[in-house]
């Protein structure tokens, strides 16, 4: 698509809690990621140019980031689960349904450890599920997903999901490769 000069990864963080937004922003910036933080699913969609309610170009038939002056490159989206109006899960679904962003890794955060919720999110495409409060150790887990995304950009045909090594994660998080235990 577009050539980006920045070597920094850009993460879009979505959380309705101001405190948690500040926290996640700081955690991500400490890891040298560029961060855009928004307070709702609809604002996230708007930022990505996916908000169907406010079409900027009435004649456009596809949703793509070209509404903006610059192409938005987002390397990862991390979202809270429990938000008013649109949950993180709803946002996940919308992102996975979009042409422009379906390959962008999505991570879900939640303060509640609900196994069925976790499984659902992972099954529907979330790469990781973090229990809040999110810590530096969790943010360190994002690197492989970001690197994989970048290598896909440069070598779109070499990536094969089945070849990925299993990522072992402790209790606090779940990746798609884990079989969720009944807790």
């Amino acid at each position, binding site marked *: 698509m577009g050539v980006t000069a920045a070597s920094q990864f850009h993460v879009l963080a979505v959380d309705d*809690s101001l*405190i*948690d937004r500040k*926290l996640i922003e700081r955690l991500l910036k400490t890891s040298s990621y560029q961060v855009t933080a928004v307070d709702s699913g609809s604002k996230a969609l708007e930022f990505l140019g996916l908000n169907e309610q406010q079409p900027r170009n009435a004649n456009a038939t596809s949703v793509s980031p070209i509404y903006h002056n610059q192409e938005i490159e987002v390397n990862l989206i991390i979202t809270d689960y429990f938000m008013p109006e649109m949950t993180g899960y709803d946002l996940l679904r919308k992102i996975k349904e979009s042409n422009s962003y379906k390959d962008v890794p999505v991570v879900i955060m939640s*303060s509640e450890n609900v196994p069925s919720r976790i499984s659902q999110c992972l099954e529907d495409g979330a790469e990781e599920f973090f229990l809040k*409060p999110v810590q530096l150790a969790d943010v360190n887990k994002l690197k492989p997903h970001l690197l994989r995304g970048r290598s896909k950009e440069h070598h779109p045909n070499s990536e094969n999901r089945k070849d990925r090594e299993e990522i072992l994660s402790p209790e*606090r998080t779940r990746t798609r490769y884990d079989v969720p235990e009944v807790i």
Partner: protein
Amino acid sequence: MDVGLMQMQRRLAEYTSALFKEGILDSQYVQLQELQDESNPDFVVEVVSLFFTDSEKLLNDLSRDLAQQNVDFKRVDAHVHQLKGSSSSIGAERVKNACIVFRNFCQEKNIPGCLRCLQQIKQEFLLVKSKLETLFKLEQQVVAAGGSIPTSGSLPTVQQPIL
């Protein structure tokens, strides 16, 4: 080394350590401290201040919610959920735990239980607020005297359960 500064630093360390021992703060607070550095020297104070204003508003909302003729428990639960989340995010362990108990009463639609819990949450909130304000003052004194704030020494070794 300045004896006065040493004494202040020791007092700060003892005060901080006591907060952890008493379960007023948990390891999440240490995480906040670790995110503070020269480029973000006020990070902890900023986040904690947000927590104070946020919580005061939520506690008022909860009082109002529970005073209604027909209590909207969904609303009450949503407010407690927020408070539980933010207290957990800054490491205010006792406030968080009080919120968890509150939610149980909320699920049972037990208004007297909720009201009692709300009192408990308010008390714990005022306690952690006053303790943290004192802690920040001690830190300011140390910094003003030319010292630096260490990250907290003694931590409870018990793994925090995920509730």
